[in-house]
């Protein structure tokens, strides 16, 4: 299938690749939130890690890793680019449709954007849990 230019750009020059330490390290760090979504059987696993400044509640830095197709890699790369500098609550406002629009994803690739939204939510939820912050009850889950 043909990919759009923005997908190709993110795929060839992924932003913010990496993590803030080993799985064991980040588990114990309160300023880090980790979200791992998807499954190897489905051909997509996305990991987003956020580093939050406890004083401001802003996402100082974000990293991603992705096992998946070009659209999945681009969606997670774009997600980290967007959430850097946002507060955690702002980051929760990002919708998968925003990613679809920005990357011009075709219908068969919409699940990649859903995963990216889920990964952001999951990372934030991990951060909140570690810090004893109650999660908003109305947090909606994207339809799969």
């Amino acid at each position: 299938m043909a990919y759009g230019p923005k997908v190709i750009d993110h795929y060839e020059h992924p932003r913010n690749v990496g993590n803030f330490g080993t799985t064991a390290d980040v588990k114990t760090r309160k300023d880090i939130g980790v979200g791992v979504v998807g499954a190897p059987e489905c051909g997509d696993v996305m990991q987003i890690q956020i580093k939050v400044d406890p004083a401001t509640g802003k996402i100082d830095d974000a990293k991603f890793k992705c096992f998946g197709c070009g659209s999945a890699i681009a969606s997670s790369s774009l997600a980290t680019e967007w959430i850097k500098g946002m507060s955690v609550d702002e980051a929760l406002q990002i919708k998968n449709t925003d990613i679809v629009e920005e990357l011009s994803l075709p219908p068969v690739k919409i699940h990649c954007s859903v995963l990216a939204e889920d990964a952001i939510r999951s990372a934030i939820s991990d951060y909140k849990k570690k810090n004893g912050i109650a999660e908003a009850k109305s947090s909606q889950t994207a339809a799969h």
Partner: protein
Amino acid sequence: MLKLPIYLDHAATTPCDPRVVEAMLPYFTEKFGNAGSRNHKFGWEAEAGIDKAREQAASLIGANEKEIIFTSGSTEGNNLAIKGAAEMYEKKPAGSPGGGRGHIITAIHEHKAVLDPCKRLQKEGFDVTFLEPPRDGVITAEAVKAAMRDDTILVTLMWANNELGTINEVPEIGKLCKSRSVLLHTDATQWVGKMPTNVERDNIDLLTWSGHKVYGPKGVGALYVRRRNPRVRLVAQIEGGGQERGYRSGTQNVTGIVGFGAACELCMREMDADGARLLKLRQKMETELTKALDVTQINGHQDRRLPHILNISFGFVEGEGLMMAIKEIACSSGSACTSASLEPSYVLKALGIGDDLAHSSLRLSMGRWTTDEQVDYAIAKITEAVKKLRVLSPLYDMHMEGIDINTIQWAAH
């Protein structure tokens, strides 16, 4: 200078050999006749072209020319062989209460052009056994023997698998079927033209192959139907003017058939040299890739494989993402990220290969014009791409940290 992209998808289709095109050309224009026109030169010329092609096709598989039925390709050939034989040799007529029309044996990793006709017959009252292959993908005569019943009428198994290149024990299965008086059909689309074939020696009753896999044109193929010992009969699936001994009505595709014949003759002459050369290239690819990259596995039996097909999985790297990184190399992936179901290759799954490794697979298939230089380029490019994607892969990190990804509870989505 290396011309890009490089074509390593010959199991999907092959380019038409220029010598084949040359043989076909007169049949588009001056020899355009309908082979069914018995009363003038135009018809006779077309008929002569078909007669020659029938001999060329027959000689490639050790058959008599009267045993060759021209079709539109392997899908049609498989449909005619399987449905045609089932309907002819049924134990009870259609509509009999409780089914019991006869038993058919096939395997779950056959091509859809075999599986779907078998499933259709199952709905129509036949019993079908779908054999499950062992991890190496090879269906043995022993496995077929164990599945045979008193009412078995047909065994249909491919000679070599299209995704893996693995080779079933067809001559041994032929011997078994012969001893039980059960018909054997083999979809030999990937095999014929690449490997020596003799339907007499190997006890094949029905054999399908296709023009575009043997450096001939698309839209033409052949079905071998044994005429002696036993004389096999089929119920025609396409009815009309009675061409091809009534088995396949419709004005013959003279141009295509002439090309098919020419392609068969070239294969006959060149398959040994092509095969030996491609085997070396395949082995080089396997050695170099497994040396350069860890957690890499060659799928299917290690020895019983066609010389030109390599199916390889690179752990922790997703196939479609990988193909994007090697867009200069035209090949296939067992990953099906684009399909709505997100299901990876059913053939790889049939071998018990985990979904994660199935998603991580590439099928590289070489052909008559594949060069050393192209293979070297592919090895370097694939190695670079896998390394790049592993830097991105959270699964590779987990692997390096000693976490077994199979023990993780993944959320379904």
